[in-house]
């Protein structure tokens, strides 16, 4: 029992350190070249077009999981402001959802 707790504790500490490091780096967000594909041909719905693009954005998104959680739990910015940012994003991506 004590051994399990120690292992879990160490794992938790390690995860916290990794996540906090991610948090410092995570301000870096970027677009992928495939994000611009098709837009000039009138396909305004931005979508995944390659595995590389999926990997690129998944990596950046995973690095932001802690602040994502904070956004909803601690509310460092107001929910209305958060939704405004999200709606502008969805509008730019022409997301029909």
């Amino acid at each position, binding site marked *: 029992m004590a051994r399990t707790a120690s292992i879990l504790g160490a794992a938790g500490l390690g995860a916290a350190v990794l996540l906090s490091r991610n948090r410092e780096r*995570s301000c870096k*967000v970027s677009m992928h070249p495939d994000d611009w594909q098709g837009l000039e041909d009138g396909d305004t719905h931005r979508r*995944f077009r390659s595995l590389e693009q999926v990997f690129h954005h998944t990596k950046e998104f995973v690095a932001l999981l802690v602040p994502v959680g904070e956004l909803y739990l601690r509310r460092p*910015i107001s929910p209305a402001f958060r939704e405004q940012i999200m709606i502008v994003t969805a509008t730019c991506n022409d*997301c029909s*959802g």
Partner: protein
Amino acid sequence: MTAHSAFGRNAGLTGQQIRNLRRLDLEKFERREYTALNWVRCFLTCPDGVPIGVEEDFAATFTPREQLYIKTSMKGMFFFNLLFSTMSRGEAGTKVVSWIVKPLLYVADHRQKSLQGKTSTKPVSRMDNFPEDLKYHKEHMWVRSDGTNGTIGISFYAQDQLGEIVFIEVPEAGADVEAGEAFGEIESCKSVSDLYAPVSGTIKEVNIEALDAPEEINQDPYGSGWIARIEFADTSELAGLLTAAEYRELVRGGESSPRT
């Protein structure tokens, strides 16, 4: 934008604020808000990168921590937008997406109602709720004529079929509309539908209260939920519209949910 509008309203945004986000005019926002939203827009739409002035303004306005949360909001939504658009291209993907989105909308809807202390925004459904003094268009719009002007809205049947209305978009006063042509959009938790002009004419007034609180349309579609006042281009078009009895037959005949 159905889910996005629903979540926006759940977070306290009005219909007008949501509409402003589509155009993003500087005058309609506080400076800080606009700085962030403009940065997001530039980031997502400028292939050559965010212009230096916009980037500098963003960096000067927000602390690094605030920038992190703004970018996080954008990135999270960006990721799920692309996922949604990719999956919804196939039939199986559409089903999976609807399994994900519908529970989320249900939760948002439930939260909004509990925040407002309401049990329901809709009156009891009555399929024969078609006032006799109105004229109806087959696309589920009604017209109340007042000589050369009239008021238009959607029928009780339409709001009942659409479910909880979360967003409505119509042109501003002064715009011309053509009978039978789409002139706006109405979004509910279930779908997005076009609004079809029942008659030709010029919009004289738009019901701002209903645009800001679309649940008015659910609650009182023939009263406070009216959509616009129109100056008729040709009053003889009214004769071509359906009476209450004819419209009742139309909807009972099972033709017709609002087109999406």
